[in-house]
């Protein structure tokens, strides 16, 4: 069973079309080439599908780091 971080990493790699980029809990959008505001929306939508959850606009807006994102997902 993959961890939340591993599954989220795959989502980010897929949506940024960058399969080698390293993702840690400290990673923020600015660290990842291709993670712009448009891609952010696609990452949110894909994560909702992957984890079977629904995020509010406020939650999606507040996510700053990958670590924040993992905590948010696990709280659902």
């Amino acid at each position, binding site marked *: 069973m993959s961890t939340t971080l591993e599954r989220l990493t795959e989502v980010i790699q897929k949506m940024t079309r960058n399969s080698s980029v390293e993702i840690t809990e400290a990673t923020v959008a600015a660290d990842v080439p291709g993670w712009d*505001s*448009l891609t952010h*929306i*696609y990452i949110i*939508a894909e994560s909702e599908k992957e984890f079977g959850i629904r*995020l*509010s*606009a406020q939650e*999606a*807006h507040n996510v700053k780091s990958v670590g924040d994102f993992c905590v948010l997902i696990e709280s659902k």
Partner: protein
Amino acid sequence: MKLLLSANFSTQFVKHALQNVSDSGESFIWSEAEFGSVIQSLFSIDRRSDITALVILMDGKNLENQFHSLSTEDRKTFGIDEAELLSQAVDHALSCGIQHVFIGNIAATAGAVHGTHHPLNHDGFEHHRRQWNQVIYDYVTRTHAANILDLERLIVAIGIRNASDAKLRVLADQPWSLSFTEDVANFILRVIRSKQGALHKCLILDLDNTLWGGVIGDDGVEGIAIGQDGIGKAFRDVQLWARELKRRGVILCICSKNTESVAREPFAIHPEMILREDDIAVFVANWENKASNIQYIQEVLNISFDSMVFLDDNPMERSIVRENIPGITVPELPENPEEYLGFLQTQQLFETTAKAVVSETKDRNRQYQIEAKRLASQKSAVSLDDFLTGLEMKAIVSEFQPPDFPRIEELFQRSNQFNLTTYRYSSQEISQLAQSKNHCTWSFRLEDKFGHHGLISLVVGKIENECLIIEAWVMSCRVLKRTMEDFIFNSILETAQKLDLKELRGVYLATAKNKLVEGLYPGLGFQASVDGFILETRLHKPRDTFILTK
């Protein structure tokens, strides 16, 4: 083809979806307007712009918000004013050389503060939305280069709740859900492709359990389900849909595994049948496999497989046809007949940008019936020459004339195979050509003992120095192999000789579909050269043809 997206919301998602759903072979370059306002972005286009087409999208909710910020006084003519301003901005863009404009209509919004009489209340947005749409429809009707994108129908089909996404609206100024955005992108591309000539022209129908319920060979005419009762209604609705398509110019054919006389019986005598034998251009019922029967239909119609749609309830037959006929569209019909029509109506199978039915289009089915008879009589004729002589063909030659302009435009639009240069002349260009001193134009009508074919070929020649350059030559494939090409060549040659032009020059620009005419000019005696195909007029006599001038 460079296209500019302009909308009253953020276009980045639509652009992304359009790029994703385009085929790799299509050379569309999508760009986004730099200004937030549609009007401003259109007026900022100038003559140096390299944009070919504009796509304008309006979100109803955003327009409604704009409306709600106005005083009662300013609301009075809001819908009309906004739409007229947009029309003027589009006119400006067209004056800068943009060739096509696609304007999305506006769907109803969910808001109805005035209750059930909201649509009647002029202080509510609904009234103005409808006026906006109407002004834009009128504008598109009178503006050749403008087209509607009927997004309202798309939204109605899946509902506002499924089409919109509140979170995306808040986060990214994007009114539509990601999946509906993809539907919109697919629809936009379908419309643009049909503008480029990629049209479905023919619907091939199976019979048992597709056009009626039951098996005619087993159940007999009185046993099949069609009409007012029970499941018969589902099939009646499919037939009504097919007949409306036929009225519009789509060719209907039958391809069924049945004994022909048995298969034809319901068309002739069943009182509830909507489709009659007259509606069908080519009727094939036998026990051979459907792929070869569709090849036969293709021979009679002389249109390409990728302009055909095949409907069959049997998954096995569908898969055989799909595998053996490259390019044909075979929808995966739902299992239950009551769901056929609803499914078919959402597939945009017969998308078109034609604004009105041209009268000759309506006669097309009859002409194919004549062609099928002719093919049969060709089989019985002793030789091809005897056959052609027996046809008693006569052609009428004229220049481009105003009453023919709509048909001329349509023929340039629809011809793909017998089309030497694939220029798609607009109606404006057609009327300019007709008046030009430097151009010669020809339109050809053909008739024979079986009937009239109508206007079947067009040629545009440009006079340059002492040379007549054949800029465009299209011909309906229905009249192939009749020596019509020779007759047309003679007309061109005669004009060139009369005008004392020393040389004819033919141009062939290859496309994926016009291989048929690759060898046309060499076949007519032209010599290949770096500038195209050349023929010296003084060295040539008219060619033999079986067609007389009427």
